[in-house]
């Protein structure tokens, strides 16, 4: 095939994973008592597009597997099968299995046939449930994985269908849409014995023949108890591009061909055309290639792009207006010029905002995985839990979204495992049996706040304290505030779970959570009330690309200190300075000895104006729990800066976390406080 399919793989995988997510959430939302057909339709559509896509790309293992799922879903959709919890669980398992298969294909790994087989078996068993046998089973059994023979399809209202006659007359344009009748016939031939008769009547004279048009029509006879759906599916791609009529051949039909006695299922599967397996192999090869240069793509709301285009349009208009003024400038046009410039400024700022906005994703990208987690965990723990998601549309930077997911999983697991009590305990203390865990996201100032709330048993301060003393984390006589007591759970090696479960309780979780959040520039708070529940709030900056900075001057150099790291700035008086061992200097601030880092020394700035401590300023900063004072010439101003990487074109410089561009176009380095402290130690 001339078209390189690999270029579409990325999109296929993205869409498939999205489809799987949709299936998963759809399945979790199914209400056993009152099933909404729309919900099942949504799930079915997702499965169907995965099947279609994987078939197109030659991932036969995936399409075969999805086909079985689809059959089951189809029966649910038509109301022929009841939606049961077991069926939903089997389907959820299959969704996981499919996800693994797709991931394996994406990464160029081999699919584990045992795992797939097990899931397929489970699906088949669910399908074969007694009393539920329908015509659709036949098509399901055409899969290669299960060998057990199945009864031919029986429809109670009608005599058994033992074959079909199909009149297929494609329109002239069929070939132009990339459809190939021969392929469809091959597909049909896998369902049963196929006899085809071609009708050449429509064929024009050779001189009039346009080879891109299809003038043929066929009469097909398919022997075997094939479900109508299976046939429709083969022709699904050409719907609307052909005239199609299918007539069932019933058992006592006089015209039934003799071959009818052999059910399709027992007939050996016709060998697949050689091109298909090789296609599959090629696709696989391309795949590995594609994964090597894995690109990081982002899906953007079209409305955001429209806004962007509008902004650029405005910008262009302003620009042409300005150049018009510039061409023939007179002094009386000064007002116009000023106007234009302020417009330009406004548009540029808006443009910057909307470009930044493109990186913003709704937090639902993270939240959406939690209903499944809660569903699985609560059934495993025997608890009744309702998970509420609030503020799913709150938008956060893509990087934050990606890094937020693991810490949140920890927190939700903890709430389910440690927070929510067993149903009997809950009813004993007068709470509803079903516990509630709420994930709430909202903006506050320049931050996003994500809260994990539960109405469980809350944190027991005495227990926490006893545990911490037992583990030797605090002194027995230590005086701790409530907040400090709660924060004990963030200490490494701290776990209050009586029994270690595989869900949580190994005591490695919370300290990692806090570290991850701090690495993102955020912090984490706990509030709790014994018996009522606890709330863990994560505060994160909206974006990692912009930083609130304080410019400082050291000689001719300008550096940016992250505003969040600055505690205060003070004048230095000589009597508060101590020189330790002749070299290190400390400054006494409210009983604390702060090491002084002389910026001009550490960065070799010869032009520094302040050489004596009393001439400059001390900027007290904090990084990774340590404090120190930076000795600088002067403070300049506060501004938001866009963080640029130094590593992109150079390499890391100790003490510098990045660079930014100041209003005058010059570069300023952004200081990395912990790095500076390390540098000063050397």
């Amino acid at each position: 095939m001339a078209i390189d399919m690999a270029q579409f793989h990325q999109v296929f995988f993205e869409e498939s994973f999205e489809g799987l997510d949709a299936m998963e959430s759809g399945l979790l939302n199914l209400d056993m008592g009152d099933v909404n057909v729309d919900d099942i339709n949504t799930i079915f559509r997702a499965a169907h597009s995965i099947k279609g896509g994987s078939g197109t790309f030659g991932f036969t293992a995936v399409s075969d597997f999805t086909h079985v799922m689809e059959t089951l879903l189809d029966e649910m959709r038509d109301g022929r099968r009841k939606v049961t919890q077991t069926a939903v669980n089997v389907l959820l398992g299959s969704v996981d299995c499919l996800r693994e298969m797709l991931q394996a294909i994406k990464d160029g790994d081999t699919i584990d046939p045992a795992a797939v087989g097990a899931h397929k078996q489970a699906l088949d068993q669910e399908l074969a449930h007694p009393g539920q046998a329908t015509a659709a089973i036949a098509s399901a059994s055409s899969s290669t994985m299960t060998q057990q023979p199945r009864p031919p399809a029986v429809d109670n209202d009608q005599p058994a269908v033992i074959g079909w006659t199909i009149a297929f007359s494609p329109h002239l344009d069929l070939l132009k849409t990339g459809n190939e009748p021969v392929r469809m016939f091959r597909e049909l031939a896998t369902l049963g014995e196929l006899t085809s008769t071609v009708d050449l009547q429509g064929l024009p004279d050779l001189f009039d023949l346009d080879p891109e048009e299809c003038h043929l029509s066929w009469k097909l006879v398919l022997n075997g108890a094939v479900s109508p759906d299976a046939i429709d599916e083969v022709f699904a791609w050409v719907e609307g591009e052909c005239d199609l009529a299918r007539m069932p051949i019933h058992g006592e039909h006089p015209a039934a061909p003799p071959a009818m006695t052999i059910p399709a299922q027992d007939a050996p599967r016709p060998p697949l055309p050689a091109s298909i397996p090789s296609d599959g192999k090629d696709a696989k090869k391309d795949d590995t290639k594609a994964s090597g240069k894995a690109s990081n793509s982002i899906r953007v709301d079209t409305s955001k792009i429209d806004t962007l285009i509008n902004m650029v349009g405005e910008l262009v208009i302003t620009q042409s207006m300005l150049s018009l003024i510039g061409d023939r400038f007179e002094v009386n046009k000064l007002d116009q010029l000023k106007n234009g410039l302020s417009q330009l400024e406004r548009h540029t700022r808006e443009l910057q905002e909307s470009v930044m906005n493109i990186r913003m994703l709704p937090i639902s990208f993270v939240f959406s995985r939690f209903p499944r987690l809660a569903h699985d965990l609560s059934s495993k723990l025997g608890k009744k839990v309702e998970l509420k998601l609030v503020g799913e549309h709150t938008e956060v930077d893509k990087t934050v979204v990606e890094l937020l997911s693991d810490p949140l999983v920890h927190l939700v697991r903890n709430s389910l495992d440690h927070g929510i009590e067993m149903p009997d305990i809950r009813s004993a203390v007068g709470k509803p049996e079903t516990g509630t865990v709420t994930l709430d996201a909202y903006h506050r100032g320049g931050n996003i706040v994500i809260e994990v709330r539960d109405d469980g048993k809350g944190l027991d301060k005495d227990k926490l304290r006893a545990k911490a003393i037992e583990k030797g984390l605090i002194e027995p006589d230590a005086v701790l505030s409530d907040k400090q007591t709660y924060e004990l759970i963030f200490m490494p090696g701290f776990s209050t779970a009586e029994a270690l479960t595989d869900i949580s309780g190994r005591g490695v979780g919370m300290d990692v959570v806090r570290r991850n959040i701090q690495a993102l520039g955020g912090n984490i708070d706990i509030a709790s009330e014994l018996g009522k529940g606890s709330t863990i709030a994560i505060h994160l900056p909206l974006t990692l690309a912009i930083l609130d900075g304080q410019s400082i001057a050291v000689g001719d150099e300008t550096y940016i200190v992250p505003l969040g790291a600055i505690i205060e700035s003070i004048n230095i008086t000589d009597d508060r300075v101590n020189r330790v061992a002749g070299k290190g200097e400390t400054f006494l601030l409210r009983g604390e000895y702060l090491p002084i880092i002389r910026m001009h020394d550490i960065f070799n700035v010869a032009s520094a104006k302040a050489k004596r401590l009393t001439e400059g300023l001390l900027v007290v900063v904090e990084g990774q729990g340590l404090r120190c004072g930076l000795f600088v010439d002067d403070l300049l101003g506060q501004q938001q800066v866009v963080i640029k990487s130094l590593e992109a074109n150079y390499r890391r410089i100790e003490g510098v976390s990045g660079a930014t561009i100041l209003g005058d176009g010059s570069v300023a380095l952004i200081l990395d406080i912990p790095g500076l402290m390390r540098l000063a130690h050397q």
Partner: protein
Amino acid sequence: MGGFLADAERFVIASESARMTAQNTTDQQAGQYLTFELAGEAYGVEILKVREIRGWEPVRKMPNTPRFVKGALNLRGAIVPIIDLRERFNMEAAPYTPTTVVIVISVETGASGPVVMGIVADAVSDVLDIEPNALRDAPNLGSKINTRYMRGMYVGKHQMVMLLDVDKLLNPEEFVDLDSLSTGQP
């Protein structure tokens, strides 16, 4: 921090250098070299590596970097380090004049992908078409410049041009070696 912004910038650079390497493979017949002057001697770099030439302008010093890294420049939003080749080759430093230029070069570093750097030269001279068979091996005369940074030498009618291998010469990883040898400071 800020690494993801760099990704987008890198992409632009990467696509450009991909175009360049694609051209490189086909230009075995004749290579074009931009020649420039450095302390009276002529040097050349492959023209496909050159992204732009601009006048010298003050740069922001970067702390704790080798002496020859003059600092960082804002090149349309990307932070580009500027290397003084005189100092890189341990030549006598010269004051920057109005003819002093910065040649912005796309460097293929291998491990860390393509990077963009600027080199300070006394002046740009010419663009030369050089047949590959006119290239000679760089003479190892114990010269100021290590031959591993040379692609070769071209002897024309009027001049002799040393052709630099910028991928090696401007690789940030290489700065470590050279530096610990010459100045001994980190």
